[in-house]
Each structure stands twice: as structure tokens, then as C-alpha cells.
């Protein structure tokens, strides 16, 4: 079964169409990177897939559960790490993770497992608001992993992290590949190139191209992935 099956997914805001008839499948355990310049429609797409924004047309199924008609079941298999750090500031690291374990009905043992996995054990008793930005971001990602989701949305997961922290997180994300379907949005092209099995490039609400980094470079006739991205996501491609 495909982890994600998107058919004709569209979203309008007034008369403006921000996501236009998206068609895409993502396999179980696949890491799919969704790229695009600001305003390309990535965030709206993620919100629709997370059941936070209702599609205007079309549908998407997560592990077979429609986001339109079976959103409660869809929500049971997904988890999201939003672009903005999303933690409860007054709770400790362990309490934040225990909250998510409770919300998804997972055993408390998941808390210590995830803390070990993301190197958070040393901060277990520290309140989230007192952590540095990098550690808060790591906690935010850990909170998405507690439920062992079948579909994971990582929205700009390494934004604001230093190089070492970013590389460490890449290791964590690589470790999830094969077990969890991951949709990764990022502005760091090298991140997508290093991690993703396939990459989709959005422009003006449309999915302009999908393929491996090598396939996209060949499609755009470019030597580097950055040049290929510019060619496929630029204004000319969008028009």
C-alpha cells in the first residue's frame, strides 16, 4: 500500500488557487522531499495532508485513510514537526514527550527511547522554554517521533540549526527511512539531495517535476542540483 496517495488535490483562497490538482504517491518508508520557493504551495499542501486545512477539490489518503472523509483515522497514522518549534514551554523535555505519548496512546517507555534516539536524555528534567533554540527544535522533532507514525511530515526540520546539529539530525532522519514515509520540506537543497529518495518541485501551486536528484538534473539539463532547481522552480517554469 502507498503511504500517501494524492489525487487532484487543490486549494483555493478566494479566487486564488494556491495548490492546483496535485497528483502524487509516496511509498511506505520512502523519504520524499517537497521543494519550492516561498509561496509555491508547499505549506498549504502539508496542511491539507495533516488535516489542518480542508481541500477545495480532490483528496489524499494516508495509509488508505482519506483526509476528507476519514480524518480521525488519518490523524492516527500521521505526525508533524511544524516549521515553527512546537513545544509546551512550561513542561520539561520528558513531560513534553509524555504528553505526546499520552495523546497517541503510546506506552511511557517511548519517552526514554526517543530521548536516547535524539540525545535529549541529558535535558530530560529541563523545562522546554529554558532550552536553546537548537535543542527546542530537536525536542519538537522528538515529539513527532514518539507516536512512531507511519507518515511523518518534517517542515524545515533543520532551520536555524548549526552544521553539526544539522548533520546529527540528518542521521536521525536517515535512521527513519525504510520504516516511516517522510515528507520533508526544506530550503536547503543539499539537505534534500542528501536525504531524499525522490524530490518533488512545486511552483505556483503545481507539482512541476518529480524524480531522483539525478533524474531532475537530467530533466533540466543541468550539472548541479541547484541549477536544476532554479530551472524547474523559477518563474518561467511556473508560468
Amino acid at each position: 500500500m502507498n503511504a500517501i496517495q494524492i489525487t487532484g488535490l487543490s486549494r483555493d483562497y478566494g479566487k486564488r488557487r494556491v495548490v492546483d490538482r496535485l497528483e502524487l504517491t509516496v511509498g511506505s518508508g520512502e523519504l520524499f522531499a517537497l521543494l519550492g520557493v516561498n509561496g509555491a504551495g508547499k505549506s498549504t499542501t502539508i496542511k491539507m495532508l495533516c488535516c489542518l486545512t480542508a481541500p477545495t477539490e480532490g483528496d489524499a489518503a494516508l495509509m488508505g485513510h482519506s483526509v476528507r472523509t476519514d480524518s480521525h483515522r488519518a490523524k492516527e497514522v500521521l505526525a508533524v514537526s511544524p516549521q515553527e518549534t512546537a513545544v509546551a514551554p512550561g513542561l520539561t523535555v520528558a513531560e513534553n514527550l509524555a504528553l505526546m505519548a499520552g495523546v497517541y496512546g503510546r506506552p511511557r517507555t517511548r519517552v526514554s527511547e526517543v530521548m536516547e534516539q535524539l540525545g535529549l536524555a541529558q535535558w530530560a528534567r529541563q523545562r522546554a522554554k529554558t532550552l536553546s533554540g537548537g535543542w527546542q527544535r530537536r525536542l519538537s522533532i522528538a515529539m513527532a517521533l514518539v507516536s512512531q507514525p507511519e507518515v511523518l511530515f518534517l517542515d524545515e526540520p533543520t532551520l536555524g540549526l548549526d552544521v553539526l546539529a544539522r548533520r546529527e539530525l540528518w542521521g536521525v532522519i536517515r535512521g527513519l527511512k525504510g520504516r516511516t514515509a517522510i515528507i520533508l520540506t526544506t530550503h536547503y537543497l543539499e539537505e534534500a539531495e542528501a536525504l531524499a529518495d525522490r524530490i518533488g518541485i512545486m511552483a505556483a501551486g503545481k507539482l512541476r517535476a518529480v524524480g531522483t536528484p539525478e533524474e531532475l538534473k537530467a530533466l533540466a539539463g543541468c550539472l548541479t542540483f541547484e541549477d536544476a532547481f532554479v530551472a524547474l522552480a523559477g518563474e518561467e517554469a511556473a508560468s
Partner: protein
Amino acid sequence: MRMLAFARRNTKELLRDPLTLFFGLGFPLVLLVLMNVIQRNVPVQIFALETLAPGIALFGLTFLALFSGLLLARDRSTAFLSRLAASPMTAADFLLGYLLPLLPMAVGQSAVCLAAAVALGLPLSWNLPAVVLSLIPSALLFIALGLLCGTLFNDKQVGGMCGAILTNATAWLAGIWFDLSLVGGAFQKIAYALPFVHGADGAKAALAGDWAALPGHLLWVSAWAAALMALAVWLFRRKMVER
């Protein structure tokens, strides 16, 4: 289970905020002591403990609206609520999760206020627990008002509405500082159409052992609380998914 996990989180967030403790417990006690001191220094009966204590206990509950509204509005202003909205939590899980931690807080707050009144000279009686129970519908009313404001407005607006406007409106319209019949007319009619004075009068009736008067006041407050809570749930559910 989901709701209880969320309620535990909200309990911790509330208890770890020193403002909650100050406004929840400290401020009503300061008012009670202050009014009592004034009473002792004037020759006429203005603030009798029998009417002042239930009134202040009700007034203290207005801060529940501030606490619930601020917590919800702050959650809404961050991606934290988006994360939870993408989880299997329902609107009822959310709102009960915000409400549950505040109910024991309301009971404790009323009990502490009445205990302080006893220390200041209010006669100890078996009616005091009834006063605490009679204030539960009012607690639900203020929590519902807070959740409604927290659903609609940002934390600064909630601070203004629940922290300033609501506390003042309650103080004036609940007949805590003066008998509403002294003003009379439209003011009194409006006050009695609203739930606040019924909350105070119900608590006063419970303290006086006037059991015949109690149900009418409690029903009025309960009806308002139920209507506001239903509205909060409906609005929150609509806001959970962008349409």
C-alpha cells in the same frame, strides 16, 4: 486518555505560572482583608462578611476566565496547537482538557477564600461547603467565557477582555460591593438577565441556608454556562480545520 494527558499538561502549565497563584488565591484574599478593614473603621454596615465573602469568592472565579483564555490563546499563537490539532484529539478533548484542571482550582480557591473569611470572623457553619458547591456553575461559566475568548482572540486581547473588562463587569454587575436595588432600573434588569449576580446571590443564599432561593440562581448560571460552553466548542471545532 488523550484528554487526560492534555489536562495533565494544562495543570502543570497553570500551576507553574506564578501569576495564576497570585490572581487565583492572593488577590481575592487581599480584597477580602481590605474590605474587612474598611468595615471595621466605619460605623455603618457596608461590607458584612456574610455578603462580602460569597461575593469575593465569586469575584475570584473571574480569574479562571483569564487563565483558561490565556492558555488557549497562547497555544493558538504557536505551532504547538497545530501539532495537537493534527493528532487524533477532538474538539471535546481539547476543551475538556483545558476545563478539568481549573475545576479543582476553583473549588480550592473558593474554600481558601471562605476559610480566610472565617478567620476574619465569619461564623463557621455547615453551609460553607454548600457555598463552595454553589459556586461550581459560576466556575464553569467563567471557564467557558475564557475558552470562548481564547478561541476568538489573541493573548493580549484575552488579557484585556478577561483580565480587565470581565473582572470589572463582574464586580459591578454581581452586586458584590453594593446592593443592585440601590441603582435599580435598567441597570438592575440587565444585571439580573446576566449570570453574574445570580452566581453571587446563589452563594449568599447557600451561606444563609436559604435553600428555596438557591435552585433558581444555579439554574440561571448553569444555563448561561452551558450555552457559552456549547458556543466555545462549536467555534473551536470550526477553527481546528481551515475551511
